[in-house]
């Protein structure tokens, strides 16, 4: 009897285990996935799975996808939001054959296009785009081909429908005014002085500037470097090598913020939302970030005082290089998609005039195409209008994707801002490590050298890139 029970128990446990291992249903990839909208059409309809890492636009997306599903009997969209570890989730899903048909993509996702194309993951959209004049008109796709970001040569892999502005300074008008400044000065040294003046006025309770632990250098100092003519991500496009030496004056000037005691103590150890909340409380006068702050300081951490948005200062008050902006709200089709024509119809819907008009007027992103800029009522976008693109904002070609040893340039240069190393030491270290990684990548074939002979730092996307394997 005992043996019989043992056999029954063993069989039941084994069957349970196998059942658990075998159940791979569902469209989510785990983690914090959430299916916000599911297909509800008939069994004959083609279901197109779309994964997004955007939660801020969930309400609008759900509403519009419901409308699409209700008006289509042949195609149904199943929409899933996954916010954590986006790039790795997509890669793992692709390798496990559970990837969706379409994913959202933005320049800020850190998904190096060449890696995904050589890895056979992204489908070229060029044949579909060439055959669709309406899509071309609304998106102005051929004006927004960014080498290495959304296209390689003539092949287009995703089309941005919007853009996040380059970084700006958001500031507390009253605090700067009390310190004797009517706004944000035009040079970095003057801004450093302004922050010092605010701190002195603050008597230990209010400070000039605040940072965050989350990529502090790229919040606004990197933008100052770009506009002052420093190399984008340290890459010299003309010579095809990494050279960070042009960053020196910016780093040395920014380091004065810490040397003067103008930075909110410990803000560089706080998460980005903590620092935003402290700015909204009036703990410091100057904060830097891109157009997403329009929504943050309106809805997430409503600011009760008068706050302004200013363009970044430069080293000498003149703009010598383009400020990086971030194309976003694009969609790419994965090669594993079995119904590519239906998937294209869904991508087309997300990029259509009707869809984008509501999306842009909802303030979810800034318009990228002139066509859509002219179609929307910008008065409906709230403070997002303060972040409208300037004529010196552009998208840089993607520098070679190198496997560096040690800390990346953002961490290394931030250490110089903190005073842990000198700017010279940091720059020499970066030049050595990045160029060694470039040479190593060229020798093992994992990257190519991008060279743009006609490179214009004010219009970096206008150059003609060539790729070298040596």
């Amino acid at each position, binding site marked *: 009897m005992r043996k019989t029970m043992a056999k029954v128990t063993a069989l039941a446990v084994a069957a349970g285990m196998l059942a658990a291992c075998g159940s791979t249903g569902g469209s989510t990839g785990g983690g914090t996935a959430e299916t916000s909208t599911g297909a509800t059409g008939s069994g004959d309809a083609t279901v197109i799975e779309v994964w997004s890492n955007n939660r801020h636009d969930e309400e609008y997306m759900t509403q519009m996808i419901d409308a699409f599903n209700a008006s289509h009997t042949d195609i149904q969209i199943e929409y899933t939001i996954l916010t954590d570890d986006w790039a790795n989730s997509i890669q793992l899903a692709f390798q496990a054959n559970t990837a969706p048909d379409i994913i959202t993509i933005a320049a800020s996702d850190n998904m190096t296009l060449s*890696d995904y194309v*050589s890895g056979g993951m992204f489908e070229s959209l060029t044949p579909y785009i060439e055959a669709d004049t309406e899509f071309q008109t609304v998106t102005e796709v051929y004006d927004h081909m960014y080498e290495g970001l959304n296209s390689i040569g003539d092949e287009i892999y995703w089309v941005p429908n919007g853009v996040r502005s380059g970084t700006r300074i958001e500031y507390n008008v009253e605090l700067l005014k009390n310190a004797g400044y009517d706004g944000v000065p035009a040079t970095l040294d003057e801004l450093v002085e302004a922050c010092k003046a605010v701190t002195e006025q603050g008597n230990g309770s209010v400070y000039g500037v605040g940072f965050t632990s989350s990529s502090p250098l790229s919040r606004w100092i990197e933008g100052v470097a770009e506009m002052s003519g420093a190399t984008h991500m340290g890459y010299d496009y003309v010579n095809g090598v990494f050279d960070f030496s042009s960053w020196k004056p910016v780093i040395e000037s920014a380091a004065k913020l810490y040397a003067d005691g103008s930075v909110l103590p410990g803000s560089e150890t706080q998460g980005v939302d903590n620092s935003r909340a402290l700015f909204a409380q009036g703990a410091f006068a100057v904060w830097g970030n891109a157009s997403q702050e329009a929504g943050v300081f309106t809805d997430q951490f409503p600011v009760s005082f008068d706050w302004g948005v200013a363009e970044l200062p430069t080293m000498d008050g003149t703009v010598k290089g383009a400020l990086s902006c971030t194309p976003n709200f694009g969609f790419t089709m994965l090669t594993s998609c079995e119904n590519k024509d239906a998937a294209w119809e869904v991508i087309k819907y997300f990029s259509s005039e009707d869809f984008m008009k509501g999306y842009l007027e909802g303030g979810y992103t800034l318009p990228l195409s002139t066509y859509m800029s002219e179609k929307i009522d910008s008065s409906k976008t709230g403070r997002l209008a303060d972040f409208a693109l300037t004529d010196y904002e552009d998208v840089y070609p993607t520098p070679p994707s190198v496997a560096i*040893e040690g800390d990346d340039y953002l961490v290394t240069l931030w250490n110089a801002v903190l005073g842990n190393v000198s700017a010279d030491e940091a720059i020499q270290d970066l030049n050595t490590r990045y160029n060694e990684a470039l040479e190593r990548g060229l020798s*093992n074939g994992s990257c190519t050298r991008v060279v743009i002979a006609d490179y214009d730092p004010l219009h970096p996307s206008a150059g003609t890139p060539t790729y070298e394997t040596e």
Partner: protein
Amino acid sequence: MSETKAKTAVKAPKRGMDANTSAKIATVLMMFPAVLLLCVVSIYPFLWLFRYVFYDYNGMTSYFTGLHNFTRMFGDTAFWASVGHTFEYAILKIIFIIPLALIMAELMSQKIRGSGVFRVIYFMPTIISTAISAMVFGFIFAAYNGVLNAVLRATGIISQNINWLGDSNTAMWAVLIVAVWGGFGNYMIYFMSGLSSIPHDVYESAMIDGAGGLTTFFRITLPMLSPMFKVIMMLAITAAFKDYESIMVLTQGGPDNRTQVMFLYIYQLLFGTSTTKPQIGYACVLSLVAAIIVGIVTGLYMLLARKLDDVM
């Protein structure tokens, strides 16, 4: 009748074989789930590491690099610095957490009113998510409006706020405080379990012989706790060397890599950063080296513990 007997006689050994085979099948089936899990979540991932040690692998495409990942490892000063920080962190953590857990276990084992409530309170950090507790400590350690600075200033211990997480001199102590707070309750329970297994009559005999509290603790409790103590120490050593989650939330290895421990360094290589791609092949090599380091430390401890047993 005789035919029936003959058939029975022939069948008897068969029934014996069937029972034996059935028992074996049952054993295999009983073991199957555990073995399957072991293979899938432990052995396969470990073998997977070996697959990429000779490659530069970004998660999609692998590029053969020969022995470069190994030669790089020997000259990777950031990695070896992180190994040094790991030893510093682990040794300090064990120095504080084990005596604290033992003392608290001894106190909690006394029949004191309300000790049950304290047991629950001390054990609670063990069941709270490391990420959540680290975030809460982030607020506590905040240099501006932080709770710890406010308390220290109110009591006159400090006159100026301390940048606990942003200062190289204090960051390691800050992450250690979180580690000790989060772990001592667990070891306290282990020690209490060990204490409860010591026969009460031994204590009574010691008391009759006139032994005081301290004498009883060092002459009775500690020696009789020795087998359990060895296991707890081994668990504490491996856990301390593998810690990185709370450090990742609190300091991300900073400031200036002061709290960079080896498994956090490996994690950052494995998943990449906002500007660097994953370096899975190299991370695999470092994972193997880290496993060897932890293995050697644990082995040395076991050897030392055995030698001490022989001496004592």
